[in-house]
């Protein structure tokens, strides 16, 4: 149905890092929001939407990954961390509020690349949310030989773990060692001696760099989702580029637009 800016209703919102969950004291506030929108109809895992804050001192839309798409019922789920003004505002939204979003944006993960392959999905921190829909889609398509999930958390606040476990085993790494393997997602691979033909990942830059090296060394294909500051979200402003190894077909220079040519790139194609 193409990209659109639409008004959508908040269906529900809750704090995942609320009282009672561990690790709240570190100050990370993570929220989980469902939106009602027919943009869900053809949302792909790894795509994102942009949310426009109402606060008029902040004009640019905020890119947030699609965590789950209920395509039949026209609903999108996002899980996000309060990072600044915009996300702080979002965290105050309540069921029934009207908000404006632009979507669905970006390319998403290439499900076809999983066909007949051993796939490892890796999410680090606030890069975990898009892994949920990816996992669901890989499971439902059922063409991968095997799908494993590694989720790297900062601490015992294991958001979305239960959701993902509905679709398969989830290996956990925590920086503070409070659950699973102490360390990061790469430490899980080593500790559990996991093997993959294809890696699909989202997370902080050091993690993505490590995956890129790993994929080079182990001959695995790694699809990584990148982040950059955006203005338009639709490929017009050239704000959100990443360096590419070869000349990009659209830009004719070694820069690709994360919002339209990405956010998912084959690790070997980009210079991160």
């Amino acid at each position, binding site marked *: 149905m193409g*990209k659109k*800016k639409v008004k959508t209703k908040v269906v529900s919102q809750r704090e995942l890092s609320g009282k009672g969950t561990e690790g709240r004291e570190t100050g990370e506030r993570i929220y989980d929001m469902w939106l009602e929108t027919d943009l869900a109809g053809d949302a792909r895992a790894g795509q994102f939407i942009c949310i426009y804050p109402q606060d008029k001192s902040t004009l640019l839309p905020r890119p947030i990954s699609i965590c789950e798409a209920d395509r039949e019922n026209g609903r999108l789920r996002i899980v996000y961390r309060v990072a600044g003004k915009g996300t702080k505002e979002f965290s105050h939204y309540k069921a029934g509020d009207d908000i404006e979003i632009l979507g669905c944006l970006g390319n998403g993960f290439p499900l076809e690349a999983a066909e007949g392959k051993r796939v490892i999905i890796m999410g680090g921190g606030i890069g975990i949310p898009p892994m949920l829909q990816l996992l669901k889609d890989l499971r439902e398509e059922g063409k991968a030989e095997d799908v494993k999930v590694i989720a790297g958390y900062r601490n015992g606040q294991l958001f979305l773990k239960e959701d993902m476990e509905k679709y398969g085993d989830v290996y956990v790494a925590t920086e503070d060692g409070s659950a699973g393997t102490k360390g990061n997602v790469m430490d899980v691979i080593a500790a559990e001696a996991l093997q993959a033909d294809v890696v699909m990942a989202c997370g902080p830059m050091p993690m993505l760099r490590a995956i890129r090296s790993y994929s080079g060394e182990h001959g695995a294909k790694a699809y990584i989702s990148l982040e950059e500051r955006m203005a*338009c979200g639709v490929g017009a402003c050239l704000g959100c580029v*990443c360096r590419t190894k070869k000349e990009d077909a659209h830009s004719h*220079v070694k820069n690709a637009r994360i919002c339209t040519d990405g956010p998912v790139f084959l690790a070997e194609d980009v210079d991160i």
Partner: protein
Amino acid sequence: MNTKVKIAGVEFKNPVMTASGTFGSGMEYAEFVDLNKLGAVVTKGVANVPWEGNPAPRVAEVYGGMLNAIGLQNPGVDVLIERDIPFLQQYDTKIIVNVCGKTVEDYLEVVEKLGDTAADMLEINVSCPNVKEGAIAFGQKADCLYDITSEIKKKAKQPVIMKLSPNVTDIAEMAKAAEAAGADALSMINTITGMKIDIHKRKCVLANKTGGLSGPAIKPVAVRMVYQASRAVKIPVIGMGGISCAEDAIEFLMAGASAVAVGAMNFVNPYVTMEIAEGIEEYMRKYGIEEISGLKIDDL
């Protein structure tokens, strides 16, 4: 009622254009906007050869606007001629190609290559504050501006719009220099140089350190400059800077602009250009104004 405007012999169906660099080559927003409804699409600045632009982060948000330091990334004029102009020719709108360069020769090469294309007008960006190699000087010194304008006018087959920098002491002086050198029209304002520091990371948000400020925050400065420049010269002025709605556009037309362009607000509302075109019509209807030129207030 008639929303047509004529600038340097080129007729636009309405005075609403896109600001260079904020609308790609039209392709990216064609999903949102019926390009047939716009006076013109102004393309992203193009040089003689592809430019890589600045490293990221290239954009930063600030109160009521944004900073950008794209650094004029572009695929080079050949790609524009092969790919982007034919795309735009499908639509019933005018095509204005924004031109950038590091030397006068760079500019001339682009201008010459564009001579036989369907581009209706050329907009010469002498004011991008993000390029280091001296291009900025063209737009900040009246004599340099005069020289580059005359050179370009010698080669250009299409009418030439000189796009002025707001980062100057006296915009009227710059406007007069461009006019004296033969410019067919002026456009203004480009972005105002700004900076944002992340006080927690203790460094500039933009990799380029400084960037150009655009958006509603700069509108009063832009209106003032359009007012001053349009009253200092006889050639038409295309006004831009923070336009977010029809009311803003009308303010520029009253200040003395013959047409307007919308930049950063496309990012906030991809439909904004069409809405502005409609809003201007509505205003004219409400106040019984027959022509766009009737919006200008001589005696402000």
